[in-house]
């Protein structure tokens, strides 16, 4: 029932996604592209594909997810340590329209290519991603994130994301340093090794 409840919440979020679309004026889109090129690129790469695994790839990320996260940084409701250290400041001056434009900018980029990791770890991760862990009532990640981890509306794209970043996000969500109640409910019983496996599998998925 818990799993079904979580999925229902997620489906509700996805439905609400339709209401998030915002009209972006051309000059704001241009300013957002400039901001992405001069500021965001320092960590996230000039095309939204970062070289450091500490910073997430943004290329091809879903726009509603990016928008929600940037607003959470700006409003300081996403409060894991890295969010505080890096993104609270970066997002503090962004208007809703600029946020929407930045999100649209990165959503339109080509996703990062996958990087294969340890074969054993990756295959275990694939099983968890596609089938979940029924013994622990952990739902398959693909249920919400899509068969190819491409994301869907407010549910983030995970394909090609840096494994260390994914692992860290699962850890801060599990420990409630990052508030994501639905995701917390899904992964709260996932072991660190299982998280590493899922992260390794996802990092290997291409665009």
């Amino acid at each position: 029932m818990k799993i079904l409840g979580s999925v229902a919440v997620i489906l509700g979020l996805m439905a609400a996604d339709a209401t998030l679309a915002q009209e972006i004026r051309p000059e704001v889109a241009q300013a957002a592209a400039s901001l992405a090129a001069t500021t965001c690129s320092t960590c996230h790469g000039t095309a939204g594909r970062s070289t450091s695994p500490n910073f997430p790839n943004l290329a091809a990320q879903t726009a509603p997810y990016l928008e929600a996260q940037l607003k959470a940084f700006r409003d300081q409701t996403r409060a894991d340590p890295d969010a505080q250290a890096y993104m609270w400041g970066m997002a503090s001056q962004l208007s809703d329209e600029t946020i929407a434009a930045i999100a649209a900018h990165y959503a339109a980029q080509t996703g990062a290519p996958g990087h294969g990791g340890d074969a054993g770890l990756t295959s275990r991760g694939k099983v968890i991603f596609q089938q979940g862990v029924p013994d622990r009532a952990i739902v398959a990640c693909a249920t919400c994130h899509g068969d190819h981890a491409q994301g869907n509306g407010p549910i983030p794209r995970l394909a090609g994301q840096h494994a260390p970043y994914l692992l860290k996000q699962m850890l801060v969500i599990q420990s409630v340093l990052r508030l994501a109640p639905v995701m917390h409910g899904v992964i709260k019983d996932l072991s660190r090794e299982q998280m590493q496996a899922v992260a390794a599998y996802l990092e290997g998925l291409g665009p």
Partner: protein
Amino acid sequence: MQQCAVSRRYTVARLLITALIAVAVHAPAWAVPSFARQTGMACAACHTVIPELTPFGREFKLNGYVIDNLKQIKGETMERRETLSLNQIPPLSVMLQVSYTHTAQAVPDSDATGAVAKDGEVLFPQQASFFYAGKIANNLGAFIQLTYDGAEDHFALDNTDVRYARYLSEAEPTGEAGQKPSGLFAGHDVLFGLTLNNNPTVQDPWNTTPAWGFPYAASSVAPGPNAATQVDGTLGGSVAGVGLYFWIDHAIYAEISAYTEAIVGGAHPVDSTQAAVVRGLAPYWRLGYEHRWGQSSLFVGTYGLQASVLPGSGHPLSGPSDHYTDVAFDTQYQYIGDDHLFTVLATYIHEDQHLDASVAYGNAANSSSHVETAKATFEYSYRRMIGGSAGVFSTGGSKDPLLYANDGSIGGSVNGSPESTGYILEINYLPFLNTKLQLQYVGYTKFNGSSSNYAGTGRNASDNNTLYLLCWLNF
């Protein structure tokens, strides 16, 4: 007689330079809250433990100190070309350093023969600095430090680095998904920058080069060794340079710079009363590769410079000069975990010297000689709060009874040697990210060529061992 007078003046000047070198070599490197004010980021974004830079801190510096989140004062032309983008709040900050120094044996009194100076020196402040550190305009930023030196009792322009930086590679244009970037730099992040600075290596983002190297803070009054290479702080503050650098795919760094004489104070236009005047242009170069994975980064690099220096100090600024060629190699490994952080730093500098001028003026015996310096440090921090460092250092090279003269002072060398070796142990406590309490011990196993009676005055190398306490506030 005139030659003797000139020689004495030169010796005094050399001792002063040596003292300044000791200070410059130990010149502290600062992290500045004005960057935090400008970016809205906590110190931990850019620093492991201040002032050592994280990979993001290096990116911030290479990008010209311009990332900001402050409201801007804007100017635009009718064609909507931006003519001004200025922080509404200037990125200013203050650093205050209070220290206590104790050497194993007190140093001789500077005036009363046979007496010794007070041992146990409190400097309040050792240094007080004011910074403008941050954005000037789009793509243009600065790190400007104005320092009051407590021992010298004067203000001076300290480390200064003004830089312009921008990406040559364009972000993939917004539009159809799957559209491929095009152009010369397609698929690569290529940043280019220009730097204008007053100290070779002050523009460098790694903590292995002299300007920002370990120890990050040290006593300004304890005795220091008599030899250092030109790139190892000797030219700092007496030159100005411009450089062009490229930072490719956040991994490859290449820089070429040129420095020229820019002595502050004394006679201007610069004349024979000044000491160590760089002749013409002194080229500086830097090449390195950084690999990042997980929470680790590894850097290997090389740097160096060539300089022709006129001794001055009573000798005309013409005729022969001394030629120095420095070649250095460095490496840095950094692990930044949530709880445990550690860094390994190492640098080796080799300097070839052709001292035509010094030989002609009787200040050096050998026209060809060399100096080499090696340093290695291990640093650890637990949650950026408590940690320590252990480092070893060694300077050696050709002996020269005139260059490293036995002048009867504790800065002399009885065997005319530049050799000094030792170690540095340090414990740090940071109750806040911008506040550092430091206990440091510097031990010498050799000082100016010997472990015992190194200057012929009965003083041993270990007598210069130094206990140093520092309270360092940044706000």
